[in-house]
């Protein structure tokens, strides 16, 4: 019995189903958002407090680094929200079967990529 259990946990040799990829992406974007919030809250606190701060943040956001951070943050947030909505739909008992779960997982990844490209084009 025990011998038949998979003991190979070398991640690069395991093929991940879409649901597993959405799960790990939800974790990665969640952790990324925690760190991204440092920039978001700094930018918000500085820009809303004084006119000089607002101009300074505006200048930073216009540079390549600022744009990269902004697009990355919005991208991570977009994915985390899409993944979260999928989670809550599954909480209500839908998309829990293999096929529907597969479709919903692929759909949110596709929607995320499309939205990231859209935001990237607008902000860059």
């Amino acid at each position: 019995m025990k011998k038949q259990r998979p003991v190979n946990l070398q991640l690069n040799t395991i093929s991940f189903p879409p649901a597993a990829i959405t799960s790990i992406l939800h974790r990665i974007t969640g952790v990324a958002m925690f760190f991204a919030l440092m920039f978001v809250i700094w930018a918000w606190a500085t820009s809303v407090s004084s006119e000089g701060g607002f101009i300074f943040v505006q200048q930073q956001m216009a540079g390549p680094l600022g744009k990269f951070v902004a697009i990355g943050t919005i991208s991570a947030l977009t994915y985390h929200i899409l993944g979260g909505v999928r989670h809550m739909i599954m909480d209500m008992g839908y998309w829990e079967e293999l096929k529907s779960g597969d479709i919903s997982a692929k759909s949110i990844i596709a929607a995320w990529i499309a939205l990231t490209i859209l935001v990237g084009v607008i902000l860059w």
Partner: protein
Amino acid sequence: MVTGQASLKRNGVQDYVTTRATAIIMTAFSLLMGWFFITTPEITYTVWNDLFSGLTMKVFTLLTLVSIMFHIRIGMWQVLTDYVKAPGLRAFIQFSINLVAFVYVIIGLFVLWSV
């Protein structure tokens, strides 16, 4: 038997509900901000400052920051308990993360106070 009702001890159901309740608040705030950035033709300092000067927006912003703190506490605990096995190291990382999450709220409070 002493129950954990009055203590700060959490349980799975509480974590489950808190994650989702805070998620709804944060999603609503994100959508509002997205809508603001899309529909405002030109965002100047006056427009930006005015947005956060009303009481409703101050309450919503602080509510979102508190939601972020609770969401971080639960989410990061879930991730850390899976990947960081050493108890001392995990306690230290969790303490640091929870501290930063609390600082986010305090910064928000003082910034909103002065707007």
